[in-house]
């Protein structure tokens, strides 16, 4: 059945993935128009990067979000911010990204251009270019509109060592801002639920915030960074606690959650601790640097709502305990599957 609103002449065809003239026209007419830089424009098989001192960080991620456009971003911004953030979470300065697209036959070219424009803008604002790419087209029904993979390379300065295993008992846990914005925005959009308020994804790059912390704190005081994407803060804390063989204790009342997010979660029966964040990070730092870290984070636009939410302790290794708003306590387990809304 042909969609009445679709213009067949303005859609992706299988030819666009063939490697022939149609592919070349898509690359030069659309991708290079919005992602232009000298390395990419050379259109060679690989991007060659000049020698950079330090350790290399390398990360990859794929993006299949539905819907592809949502308040606060789209699949393109997620693809750029997400991989930049994965590099930044190891203390790396992101150098460049690759961009691989799998397009469904029939995808509206205007939608594709909108995504590519978003990617171009996100790259420019982040200062991290796309230097190599690939495009494939699959028959209608074999993909859902557009799937994106981005891989990224970053450089970690010699003495920087950020990982979950570096966390120590007594370390303070800071969350860089409000929780669950992205996850609830996607779930309400997917459900077709319109709510008053300003639910929007928090998709953002965090590498500049990380660079500020690495420059501003004494060497060795920043131990662990993690961006709590799928599975939420709950799952990330469980992973960190398990890797560090420590117990994490967090205060429910200290965790920043916007009122609209909290209300939407209540309506849908979802727990914000388990919903994705795409522009936030958990920062685990030596206790004597906690206030300085918080101050540095709050001086940035992405971290202005940063808050200390808890600490790591010796105790049952891998356990995460939440002290509730009424003074009780409960254990926070990792997410087991997709969050599902409840009956009643």
């Amino acid at each position, binding site marked *: 059945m042909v969609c009445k609103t679709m213009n067949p002449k303005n859609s992706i065809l299988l030819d666009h993935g063939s490697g022939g003239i149609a592919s070349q026209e898509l690359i030069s007419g659309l991708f290079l128009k919005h992602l232009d830089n000298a390395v990419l424009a050379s259109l060679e098989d690989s991007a060659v990067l000049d020698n950079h001192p330090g350790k290399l960080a390398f990360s990859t991620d794929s993006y299949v979000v539905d819907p592809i456009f949502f308040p606060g971003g789209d699949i393109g911004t997620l693809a750029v911010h997400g991989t930049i953030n994965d590099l930044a979470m190891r203390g790396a300065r992101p150098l460049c990204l690759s961009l691989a697209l799998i397009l469904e036959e029939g995808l509206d070219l205007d939608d594709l251009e909108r995504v590519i424009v978003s990617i171009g803008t996100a790259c420019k604002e982040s200062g991290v270019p796309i230097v190599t790419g690939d495009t494939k087209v699959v028959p209608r029904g074999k993909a859902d509109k557009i799937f994106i993979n981005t891989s990224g390379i970053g450089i970690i300065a010699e003495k920087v060592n950020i990982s979950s295993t570096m966390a120590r008992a007594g370390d303070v846990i800071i969350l860089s801002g409000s929780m669950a914005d992205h996850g609830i925005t996607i779930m309400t959009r997917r*459900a*077709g*639920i319109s709510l008053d308020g300003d639910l929007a994804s928090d998709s953002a790059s965090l590498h500049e915030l990380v660079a500020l912390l690495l420059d501003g704190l004494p060497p060795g005081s920043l131990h662990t960074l993690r961006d709590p994407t799928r599975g939420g803060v709950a799952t990330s804390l469980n992973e960190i606690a398990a890797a560090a063989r420590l117990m994490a204790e967090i205060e429910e*009342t200290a965790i920043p959650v916007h009122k609209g997010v*909290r*209300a939407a979660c*209540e309506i*849908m*029966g979802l*727990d914000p601790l388990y919903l994705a964040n795409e522009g936030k990070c958990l920062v685990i730092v030596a206790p004597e640097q906690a206030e300085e870290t918080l101050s540095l984070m709050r001086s940035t636009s992405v971290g202005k709502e940063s808050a200390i939410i808890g600490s790591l302790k010796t105790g049952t290794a891998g356990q995460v305990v*939440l*002290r*509730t*708003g*009424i*003074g*009780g*306590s*409960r*254990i926070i*387990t990792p997410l*087991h*599957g997709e969050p*599902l*809304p*409840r*009956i*009643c």
Partner: protein
Amino acid sequence: MKYLDEFRDQDLAKPLLKELRHSVTRPLRVMEVCGTHTMAIFRNGLRSLLPDGLELISGPGCPVCVTSASHIDAILDMAERPQVRIALFGDLFRVPGSSGLSLAHASSHGAKVDIVYSPMDSLELAKKHPQELVIFLGVGFETTTPGIAATIMAAQNSGVDNFAVFSTHKVMPPPLISLLNDPELQIDGLLCPGHVSTIIGARAYQPLVEKYNLACVVAGFEPADILQALIMLARQVSQGEARVENAYTRAVSWEGNERAQQMVNKIFEPVDMEWRGLGTIPLSGLAIRESCCHFDAEKRLDIKLIPAAEPPGCRCGEILKGKERPPQCPLFGSRCTPGNPVGPCMVSSEGTCAAFYKYG
């Protein structure tokens, strides 16, 4: 008043906790019937704050948990049929039938399964897929049934033909009577389900007071609501009284929502229904009336329920009756986890086992 903040306020909870400690003058066993109460108690860390001597037992008020394996098997049978699309609330998606497979598995093998947030969404699905029969899985207690009744009425009014409901709906008072008739079950009071009571009214528990001399308090779901209701229960028991009290007056009245009750009575009629772990309880379920039989999936697809045995070792039945706690089940946390559930008490977001597993 925003309700979320005020009834969760620590400054309100602290004096309530103190008063609760003061009010519990002897060992007290209270059954909290509703699955949402189970989750709320755990989520707020209330169990860690309750005074010694007050024991909370989780009852059968989790609609997904009490859906029998034979009903799940029938659902899986429908899901496999060509031209059938299943619409359901999310909780039921992972509940296993007698083979250990669930709708999640069926979906991964090509069954058309849509999770919806409102039963009306399933009507929209029927309009969107005119060549398919969209079946909405009717699971839930009195809170949910009026919405399903309204959806069937909307289907009638709009002439949507390719829509039906598979009703495993249940009503709350009969299983309570069945439990209270069991001499092994010794409880002093009932924390009555708040949202069910918005429909059936606080008066629905009066027969339990008269027959069993049981203290009954209708409770809301925020920490202050639950603590207030527990104080009222403890005071009744200390004073040797038994009556129905309503601690959720902002949502529940004595009569309930009579319009909703009428809508349900128009579309559904009471029938005997099988409850997982409790057996068949007379007049505890709802079937679609003959006058609306076109919307009854069981009749439309000639579904025959085949008795299914409970999974070996699973103690869901005893847990639902409040006789055992999840850690007493040999499968709890080992063979039966949220990722690999054996019984529904583990998969449902309101399941007692899921609550124990998640919240400790």
